[in-house]
């Protein structure tokens, strides 16, 4: 399936981007953290909908929001995250339509086959490559982050698990803060491994 070409769309200039950051922050100064958080949620939304290039689609969504902010001056009638979601729905629809067109052309050229089951198709070579990439990506993290992610996922799953509670106590964190840190590190590791495998 071809990648939805989103790069041709409007890109915000520096001033427009700063306006977007300020609008997302809603009066606080998160130094871009809020933008990254929303971007991450949008990328996962697109990924769960089987979109190719979910990060590009999240970029496109936020670019369109920035553009709308430029046109209207301000958007006060709806919360920023909610507005981003509304915009994301339009971007998703366009991406799906685009994929459908691509697929119908491709289907005429060859029969469609589902991917094989994930438990079966992972060759040992592929698995070794993934493990090598994981090692590299882990080694690029700080020792504290490495220890945290390994200890966290070594514990029984669920934020209420005794192991994770003990880990949170040891680190002086709440269970929620620990969970946030763990999935942030995991998300970064997953992205790093994906890039490594694509090389």
């Amino acid at each position, binding site marked *: 399936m071809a990648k939805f070409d989103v790069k041709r769309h409007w890109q915000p200039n520096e001033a427009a981007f700063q306006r977007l950051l300020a609008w997302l922050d809603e009066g606080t100064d998160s130094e871009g953290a809020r933008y990254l*958080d*929303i971007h991450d*949620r*949008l990328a*996962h*939304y697109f*990924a*769960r909908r*089987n979109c190719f290039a*979910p990060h590009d689609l999240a970029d496109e969504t936020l670019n369109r929001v920035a553009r709308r902010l430029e046109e209207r001056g301000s958007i006060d009638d709806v919360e920023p*995250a*909610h507005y*981003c*979601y509304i915009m*994301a729905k339009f971007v998703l629809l366009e991406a799906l339509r685009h994929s459908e067109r691509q697929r119908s052309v491709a289907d005429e050229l060859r029969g469609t086959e*589902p*991917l094989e*089951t*994930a*438990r079966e198709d*992972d060759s040992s*070579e592929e*698995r070794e*490559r*993934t*493990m*090598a990439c*994981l*090692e*590299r*990506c882990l*080694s*690029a993290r700080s020792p*504290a982050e*490495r*220890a*945290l992610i*390994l*200890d966290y*996922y*070594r514990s029984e*799953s*669920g934020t209420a698990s005794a192991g994770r509670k003990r*880990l949170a*106590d*040891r*680190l*002086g964190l709440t269970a*929620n803060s620990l*969970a*946030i840190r763990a*999935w942030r590190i995991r998300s*970064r*590791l*997953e992205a*790093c*491994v994906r*890039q*490594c495998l694509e*090389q």
Partner: protein
Amino acid sequence: MTEHSNDDLVRYLLGDLPPDETERLDERSVTDGEFSLRLREIENDLVDRYARGEPFDAALQGLDRVSRTSPYLKHKIGFARALSPRLATGERTVARAPSATSNRFVRWVAVAAMAAITVGYLSVRNVRLREALTTVEAGRVATERANAELRQQLERVRSTPVLPAPLIATFQLTPPRRDVRTETIMTIPRAATEVRLQLQVELDVPNVFWAALRDPGAGRIVWRSGDVTAEAASPGNSLVVVTIPASVLAPRRYVIDLSRIDRSGSAELIGQYAIRAVLE
């Protein structure tokens, strides 16, 4: 707002909820930070269970079905499968924050130690003599144990065959040009055990790099480096030195992909060095 059970969220992730409910949860996944986190936790736990090969229940069966058409889930499963064995061998070096319990314990030990010292002062001389004898005995036992260990080490060294020193063939490769068809011929002695490549890059230190040796004919990577730090060569130029086992090289064409690693761990391909290995 209705609080959804974990089972509901699993059904949502597997696309098994009615469209209106799916729409509501889609919205919350973007607009509600806590919900988004909970969803990711459940998704990661589900994927981890699948990757560990746990017996199929309805959720894992659903994941198996959905992952067939989802590159996103396939990647997550591949990642989880790589992470799973790593958890068994991982390090445990998390710094401990001092807790109230441990502070109480330390205080208790201190009080007990003071009491012991006081009792010691009140003891008669023969107790001290007995302690001194005990110390001497302990020292003798420790010395004997150390001698035994040294003897064992000596035996191991004597029984280990002496390995020949590695024979290293070294080559320097100039910064790559646009055309990767221009290749550098590397004549490698057959006796060489390792091939050291000094890759010139037009970048200042410090940078961390990864190198991958690719066989373009077979379309696969035959060797990868670990993290390599560049050495300064001249202003604006660095040398990335990698050592490849000679055994991985056959007489054919290879391409070395050199990537720079940024602080977030992301890799950026900065050069491709085409080489042709000739064994002599």
